[in-house]
């Protein structure tokens, strides 16, 4: 059964298993981990080189953060401005409060077009609202045109990275998928041959499918323009050949002025792919007679974004420009790849974005899927303090737990509650140190180390020893020394 019909069960935060559970089979998948490590190493090295050559990188970051923050502070105003300008230029703007509404709008538009097929430029937002299964259910076939998305669509797989969705697949696996699904015998795994196969497959679609769907990297309020950046030219094809273009964009994608692109495109290309400029930057404003699609719709999607916007600490999440630099540098993502996050948005940004889009009703383990090493914050081109938001969300998850019944079976919860009582009084802390020493002696080997502990302790000793508690705490030593000195 094809992926598109089956839906995206792995990447649906409502249905996804917890992060630790989802990570486990991936940790056992040596090939996938090798692919992820290799790909992230390559992108990271390219990014590091291009960031280093930019002597004003920190200024650029500040400027980008400011543009995005300002746009969000005045989001209503800029969205209305975008709507007015886009409409004046011949586009039609639709507003969707949630995923279901956005899917309905797009399916209705496709029906109006009497479309039986539609071609798509890579859009993470469409995966967020699980658009493909809805389109398929309406009897319309959606063809992905981004190379990585084709690999995933033909391989019944799911995106694992925001910028490089098939990052977890290597070229011999791509060769296998193409050979099987395109029916090509004797296909080599030479990248040029593989892209040639994809090109042949795609050309037919570009020439005969008159309806296209895109996402948006930016919406320019000042002019009503939509910007899409890409590397392969498939987007340019979709933006020139079809009769009708439907663009799906989160309301967070708006920037105030055309000239803001100067900053945004610089930080995006360098952060995302380690390029000075991305190969294809397409900008279009409404409809131009005789040039490109003659019918143009923009679906502006909220789907939880305004509720994020309402929270001062979490608001910065919406500054994200989907460069995925945080994924590439994240030591957690580098081990697990994207699928463990159970959402189209993986990595550190996914760990804060997904639970918020779910109103914290799902994906509650994601804010804990980080060692808080802050490598993400360091590379973020729009300075999203991801660790800060992670901590905020962790506090909200714990507050949920306090109110619910699950806490009664959570030993760690009670451990931390009790630890807090102990830390409140030094004599209790001393007593606990003494008790801990006696208790752990039972598990301490002849070599003075602990190799096994039960329950939560066992989660430590699964891969790590722990030195047994010394006979004398520091405070005991200090007290004894002070006494000796007198």
């Amino acid at each position, binding site marked *: 059964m094809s992926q598109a019909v089956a839906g995206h069960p792995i990447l649906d935060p409502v249905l996804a298993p917890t992060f630790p559970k989802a990570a486990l089979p991936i940790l056992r998948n040596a090939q996938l981990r090798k692919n992820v490590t290799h790909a992230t190493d390559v992108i990271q090295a390219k990014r590091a080189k291009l960031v280093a050559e930019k002597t004003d990188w920190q200024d650029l970051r500040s400027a980008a953060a400011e543009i995005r923050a300002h746009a969000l502070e005045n989001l209503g105003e800029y969205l209305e401005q975008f709507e007015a300008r886009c409409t004046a230029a011949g586009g039609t703007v639709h507003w969707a409060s949630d995923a279901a509404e956005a899917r309905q709008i797009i399916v209705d538009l496709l029906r109006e077009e009497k479309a039986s097929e539609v071609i798509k430029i890579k859009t993470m937002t469409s995966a967020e609202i699980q658009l493909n299964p809805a389109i398929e259910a309406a009897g319309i076939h959606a063809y992905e045109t981004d190379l990585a998305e084709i690999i995933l669509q033909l391989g019944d797989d799911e995106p694992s990275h925001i910028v490089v969705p098939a990052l977890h697949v290597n070229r011999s696996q791509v060769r296998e998928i193409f050979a099987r699904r395109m029916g090509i015998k004797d296909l080599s795994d030479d990248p040029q041959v593989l892209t040639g196969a994809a090109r042949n497959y795609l050309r037919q679609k570009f020439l005969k499918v008159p309806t296209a769907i895109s996402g948006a990297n930016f919406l320019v309020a000042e002019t009503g323009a939509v910007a899409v950046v890409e590397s392969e030219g498939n987007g340019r094809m979709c933006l020139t050949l079809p009769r009708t273009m439907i663009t799906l964009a989160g309301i967070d994608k708006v920037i105030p002025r055309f000239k803001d692109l100067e900053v945004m495109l610089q930080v995006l290309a360098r952060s995302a792919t380690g390029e000075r400029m991305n190969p294809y930057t397409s900008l279009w404003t409404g409809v131009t007679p005789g040039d490109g699609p003659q019918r143009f719709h923009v679906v502006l999607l909220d789907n939880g974004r305004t509720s994020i916007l309402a929270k001062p600490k979490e608001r910065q999440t919406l500054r994200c420009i989907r460069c995925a630099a945080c994924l590439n540098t994240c030591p957690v993502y580098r081990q697990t790849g994207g699928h463990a996050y159970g959402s189209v948005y993986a990595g550190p940004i996914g760990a804060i974005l997904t639970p918020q889009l779910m109103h914290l009703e799902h994906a509650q383990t994601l804010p*804990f899927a980080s060692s808080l090493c802050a490598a993400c914050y360091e590379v973020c081109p729009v300075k999203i303090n991801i660790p800060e938001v992670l901590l905020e969300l962790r506090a909200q998850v714990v507050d949920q737990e306090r109110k619910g019944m699950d806490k009664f079976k959570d030993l760690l919860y009670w451990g931390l509650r009790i630890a807090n009582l102990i*830390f409140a009084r030094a004599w209790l802390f001393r007593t606990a140190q003494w008790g801990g020493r006696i208790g752990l002696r039972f598990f301490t080997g002849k070599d003075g180390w602990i190799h096994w502990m039960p329950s939560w302790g066992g989660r430590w000793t699964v891969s790590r020893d722990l030195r047994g508690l010394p006979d004398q705490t520091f405070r005991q030593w200090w007290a004894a020394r002070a006494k000796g000195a007198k």
Partner: protein
Amino acid sequence: MRASLFITCYNDTLYPETGRAVVTLLERLGVELEFRAAQTCCGQMHANTGFRAEAFSQAKRLVRLYSDAEAVVIPSSSCVCMMRDQYPGLFEELGNESLRRDFAALLPRVYELTEFLVDQLKVEDVGAYFPHRVAYHPSCHALRGLHIGDRPVRLLNKVRGLELAPIENVDRCCGFGGTFSVKNFEVSSAMLGAKVHDLLSTKADYCTAVDNSCLMHIGGALHRQYAGMRTIHIAQILAATEGAAEEAA
């Protein structure tokens, strides 16, 4: 100079030799040290696990305890980071004006050990002798939290006999992350595996850091794997002198 030692809860309990080394080192450099017996924990574990109210009560306790201290020295960058990065938010949300005032007055006098040595005592050569090949692991909180820079390296470079070993992917997390190491123990173990690989490639005798928490994690794996490398807190290296080799882990 006078200073108050906040040893931190886990150093007190698990790594008292680090505390003893800090005392040896600072007293050798002429610092008059005091230890306030009422101290317990800074609240980091609670704050990082989402227990904000609990973290606040510990933070408040700590600020009150040290409000009249001349300087507070802490041999753990993550605890200092907790105070610098998280206390302000906690006090803004849950504290009152007097607490915020006391905290604002105290914060500039709180130092991580190597900050205290380099910035306050203005020493780099602390007269240490440690004839070993040592890999310095810059903990995430020291590196990206405190922006501690090369202070620890400058100190280590002046230790006689010590040979510094460069680590590949030096700025990558070891996978500890407090309760992350047990909540996500499989992923944490995978991260640790990568770090141990990079460390063993250095062929160093010791791995050192300014945080015993990372070292507990790394050292736990080294011990489990019968690897020929040990972990040691930087204070123990800096306290070591010829003829009086400080007890190593």
